[in-house]
């Protein structure tokens, strides 16, 4: 289950945040925020996506750059707030 979710988030990040011509690889531990793939403004759309996809609410104080900095971190965050992963 967790692997499928990881794959789904990776695909979403690739589709939405990488340039369509990009050959960059995204893995579960790839740095998303600190590498600049997802900036602090774009974090809002990623947060909204996760909330809708998993029917959860991620409090602003927990939606920190660190919590979004890799797919692994994101899995940990959404699990904490009730996503079944």
């Amino acid at each position: 289950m967790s692997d499928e979710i990881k794959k789904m988030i990776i695909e979403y990040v690739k589709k939405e945040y990488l340039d369509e011509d990009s050959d960059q690889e995204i893995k579960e531990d790839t740095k998303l925020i600190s590498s600049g793939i997802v900036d602090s403004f774009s974090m809002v759309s990623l947060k909204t996506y996760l909330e809708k996809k998993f029917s959860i609410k991620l409090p602003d104080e927990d939606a920190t750059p660190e919590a979004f900095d890799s797919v692994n971190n994101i899995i940990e965050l959404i699990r904490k707030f009730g996503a079944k992963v």
Partner: protein
Amino acid sequence: MSNIGSYEDRYKSFDWKLSEQELEYGKNGQYNIGYYCSDRICEKGLGSKPALIWEGFTGEVKKYTYEDIRAYSNTTAKFLQDQGIKPGDRVCLFMDKIPELYICFLGILKMGGIAQPLFSAFGEESLITRLDDAKTKAVLTTRKHAGKVRRIRKDLPELATIIIVDADDKPLNAGEAAFAMEKLPRVEKFDIVKVEPETASVLHYTSGTTGKPKGAQHVHNSLVAQYITSKWVLDLKPEDIYWCTADPGWVTGTSYGIIGPWANGVTQVVLDAGFSAQNWYAFIERMKVTMWYSAPTAIRMLMKEGVEAVKKHNLSSLRHLCSVGEPLNAEAVIWSEKAFGKPFYDTFWQTETGAMMICNYPGMKVKPGSMGKPFPGITATVVNPKTFEPVDKPGTVGLIAFRPGWPSMMRAYWNNKETYDGKFKNGWYLSGDRSSIDADGYYWFVGRDDDVINTAGHLVGPFEIESALLEHPAVAESAAVGKPDPLNMEVVKAFIALKPGFEPSSDLEMDIMNFIRKKLSPLAMPQEIEFMASMPKTRSGKIMRRMLRAKEWGEEIGDISTLEND
């Protein structure tokens, strides 16, 4: 002792000639900023001093001395000449905060080109608007961002070359060139193009309420203001390790992330990584940063992490802190004293002013929440918005205005004389910002005088967002406004009426948000969308954006007598 000494004494006796004398401005007929930021520092015997220490997000570190930036900017200048770029041509820099961004900026100036930095997160629509307006001749970029330029190239007939600075062995298309700055033979001697003080140097695009973004065109003479404000407001000293967190895609990143510190011969550090409080503190500790120039949004993000996060690091190297981009709230100033043992000093200026205008100075009492006082040599006031006469009572709110003539004032909006001329009334340059002045002469920011959205210190034009929204297949009508935000001061909120056949849904909301983010930029992406059955309009059919904005701010809606019955 601070560089400025007594603010009052400096203000009374100031003459810009002081800055020119310190710079030996015009020596041997040289006015080129590129020379003053590299060759001149080397001539002073500081060639081996570090000019730039760059750190990437993986922890990779690169160091460049003043001799390095002198030679590499020569290499860039010669390469551009070999590509057929001529003095006066616009050369765009479109890349992340990598060393080439900083050094190639000087190279463009050295060969007489006009540097046109653009924020690397811009989408294709934002890019084409600015490149088309400037009739840009060349774009320097990286593989990561080249795709966006390639896809719009067919609509940019003036664009002669796309230059990829990290092409390595990757194949290039026709009309593209690879430029490996550090792998090419270093050009030790380059005949820097002799410019006049009034020769165009930098073109920075900024957003307005209506119409397309405007290119604020600066000249080499801006150096005179950028040098002395860096020295007196940022208090830069020879031994400083300076960190300006701004991206050179915006004016702070060029005026005070390249020109100011390097003209002062200071070592600056750059962190090319996304924001994280722990990473920032660790960077300051590791680099032993002494002077830090940042922005209120970043400071408020640090506040969220608390003083405890600060105390995990040894930040004792910090001796002076400044802020720019949006008003620095009093709470942030007070928190900074608690967290770092010193306040952030707010500075106010704009893309159009090119250099700091109203600031807080070392040694001058800081009133938390105030913008400070005008820089020496700057005649500032607050004018009545109808008569454009200075207000006479302390505390009266009006438009911040400056007497034209300071060295770094923009000289034109590119190809837009009418809008440029409209910025001047009754002998004053009107900033578009509102404030009051207290009895002690301190300025207090109130807000914008137009609908431009200031989000995290960046101005976003509602017209640009609304135009892009209309390109979404589901959107019939839209209005974009700034909505109050505790972190970013304002964020974009869009009001949308859908075309027949479309229903509001969370999926559609997401789709529209991402559509704008990719088309324009993450800054322009609406962080909230409100679907409406129809938009409030005037009898002449104009959408009443101001009414929607007032609603968000809890302000009086004002005269709605011309509102169409809804």
